[in-house]
């Protein structure tokens, strides 16, 4: 009996030390300072194909209660669904910022990157950033958008191309404008693309693309519009039993 008890005690000890080692491992570098707030500087809401690394890094900043940058605060990152953040933890630099790169997971959708830092009292402060991963269809839609749509629908000009957005009487909606576009059904969106704005009592400045793009292309565009909507577009029409 005593032997059994000894065995059990030994096992618990092994387990305990293992667990302790694990939690020690996730602690990361020792914080030299503590902040009161965690804000995103840049790198949120990026759009990329599934599995790929985002073009721009994610930059977060730790501030104190007065809003001044805190150097040397420890920030750790957690990203789910197969997405990865490198480095997964680190200390903020002299400007209070920490820059990490994010690679998306293998499934289309939105990925949340949770950054965590601790204040003086040890309370966790969280910041949730969102990145968008495009599957094959949405990525095809993105390429078509770049070619056919963005000249008018993207209000931002680039060095190579001036946006046509401001030249139009009825200002086109950016595809990220979820507040507006989420209210339009998929059937109506593809109808507007296929038959032009005038067919649905909207501006004739939106020309019909049904003769230029095929059905699969238009479906891909709608899928892209849904994927990048901000606020996100929720799936509709799913009915769940109540028990």
């Amino acid at each position: 009996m005593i032997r059994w008890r000894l065995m059990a005690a030994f096992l618990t000890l092994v387990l305990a030390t293992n667990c302790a080692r694990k939690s020690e491992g996730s602690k990361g570098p020792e914080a030299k300072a503590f902040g009161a707030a965690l804000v995103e500087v840049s790198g949120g809401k990026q759009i990329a194909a599934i599995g790929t690394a985002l073009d721009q890094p994610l930059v977060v900043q730790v501030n104190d209660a007065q809003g001044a940058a805190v150097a040397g605060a420890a920030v750790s990152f957690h990203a789910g669904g197969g997405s990865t953040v490198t480095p997964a933890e680190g200390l903020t630099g002299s400007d209070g910022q920490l820059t990490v790169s994010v690679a998306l997971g293998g499934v289309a959708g939105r990925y949340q990157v949770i950054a965590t830092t601790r204040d003086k009292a040890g309370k966790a402060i969280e910041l949730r950033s969102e990145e968008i991963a495009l599957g094959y269809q949405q990525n095809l839609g993105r390429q078509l958008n770049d070619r056919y749509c963005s000249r008018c629908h993207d209000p931002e000009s680039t060095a190579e191309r001036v946006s046509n957005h401001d030249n139009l009487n009825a200002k086109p909606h950016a595809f990220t404008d979820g507040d507006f576009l989420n209210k339009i059904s998929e059937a109506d969106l593809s109808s507007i693309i296929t038959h032009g704005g005038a067919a649905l009592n909207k501006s004739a400045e939106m020309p019909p693309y049904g003769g230029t793009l095929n059905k699969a292309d238009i479906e891909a565009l709608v899928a892209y519009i849904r994927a990048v909507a901000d606020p996100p577009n929720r799936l509709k029409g799913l009915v769940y039993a109540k028990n």
Partner: protein
Amino acid sequence: MDLKRKIAAAWAFLFGDSGHAFGTLSVVLVLCLAVVPAKDHFREWSQYQTRYLRLIRLRGDAASLQRRFQPGMQQNWLPELGVVDRCTTCHVAMKEATLADVSTQPFRPHPPIPHSLTEFGCVMCHRGQGPATTVEEAHSSTKAWEQPVLPARYFEASCGQCHQNSLTGTPQLNLGRKLLARYGCVSCHALKTPGGVRMTSTNEPPPLTHVAEKTTREWIYAWLKNPQAYSVAATMPDFKLGDTDARDISAFLIDQSTAYKTADAAKSVATPVDPSEGASVYGESFCASCHAVQNAAGLMVGGDIGPELTRIGSKVKPDWMALWLRDPKLYAPHTAMPRYRFNEKQLGLLAGFLQAKADSELLANVHLDAATKEQIAHGKALVNERGCASCHELNGIRKPDNFAPDLSAAGSRSLAKIVFAAGVARTLPDYLAAKIRQPHAFGKELKMPQYSFTPAQIDALVTALLAQTENAQTLPATLRVAGQPASSYQPAGKAWKLMEDMQCFSCHAINGRGGDMAPDLTWEGSAVERAWLLSFLKNPNTLRPALIRRMPRFNLTDAEAQTLTDYILAVYQTPAFDADSLDAAKFTAEGRERGRQLYYSKYACQSCHIIDPQNDKGYVGPTLTQIGAKLTAAWTFHYLKNPQLLRPGNIEPNQHMSDDDARALTAFLMAQKKSPEVAKR
């Protein structure tokens, strides 16, 4: 003793008489028979199927989901494709679109793709071990199966097994293939598509046969040591040469260089006092269409067909510069650079302007003593060893055949044959990426040079290489989608001489040959009016004000412009319609007015085009203020009816216009002949 008695009692109970023995043996037999179904019940896939049934139980469409669910082991066998997979045993809901909200695997439905899941199977695209029945064996690499499931970032590689053409939906694969051809990868490595076509380089590295006339040994030395220090965008990789090696190669390159025929143009031009005037020649000639210059903010402005010119003054000799600008083909017969026919003043200004783009620090620390014979001989040996002649033409050195390993089946390489560098995960994609990122980690003596690719470029290259699988070579030929075949189209006679001289094909494509920067000219003869083309060739005005890259002015003589115009109008005629089928003289004022209304209301053309510079603001399409003087009526009519018929890939939407509408719009457009000055008034 106690134990022995107990055993004896049990034995007596179980096998004491024939009745008991029969009963006991029956129980044992039943237990034995139950092992198989029990084992099946506890298999991994069976657990997933049970979980799936539990998952769908509460959903609104549970009944139909349940009806379509097939229990037990599922297998898809496609002998023609070499596919056997049992993935759908666990991935049960592949075709259930209503489960789109489910985020737990293996129950997610497959996202929409252009192919049928049953016809192509899973492992064609995802790799992994199809016949395996456990998650671990199916997804990961094992000793018997080296190809694990392909990571999502390289998925497009799978499309590339059959599709040699450039698909809209596979930007990463397209980029990877472009990089393979542009950065000289395929100059050293043979890379054949499954159809047997060898990929060729799209980059024409300069010949080095006369390099001493062009630049100094000091510059060559600095360039060899670090090409990117001279030009960030240089396609030449870093060969990680030591000081002695770079010294000896530069010595050899100067030594092997010969003089080149400069004909009567040998006279150099006087460089003007104030080179800043040259900026306007640089601008007018639209050098920036092909060449980039780093601006004060460090951003590259300009195209990437020609080399970056930020520090060109530190590189080339002034005499060479003047000769090059006068006639580039004398030095490099295959260059993409046009002959501009500059006059002496323009030449002097431009040469001076470019020569002033110098970086005094570039060569400040390079001091080379005169080369010795030994150094030159060593340099030659190094040039042979490094395969310089794979890309560059050199005197006395032949282009080596198959200098580097064949990459035609790079995507199926056996891991057993690969020596992995320390810290590289044991998978094929990781190996390929690491090899491109840092070849020298795999051995200092490796000949593969160091490129400065971005992580995204490396991913694209790995994707393009992973597409080169052995499986792709054995697939049925009917599945193969060939890439665009290289066109050897060549115009005839004097016109060809002129087109070659001005390198029209660097930017324009005709009959499948040429670049994509400028419009395709295959049917240009049907499109334009003679007078317009003649004056455009003499003085190309800006058709699209929003573009940085535009048609340069080549300073053609009247006779040259005439020759070219005649040829284009006679040869580049579309068979799709008769050029005289629409007589512009028959258009009426009413028709024009109806066309105006259609233009501004029904078709809202002003969204993209400018026809009235005071009120219209469309930036997307070309300005139409003089369109009546440029285009023929027949072309305009047929173009309006179907823009892609005459210009495939054109972004102007096909509006399925009626003949009446198209005719009225044509009448309105053909009336737009005023010059911009008149319009402004």
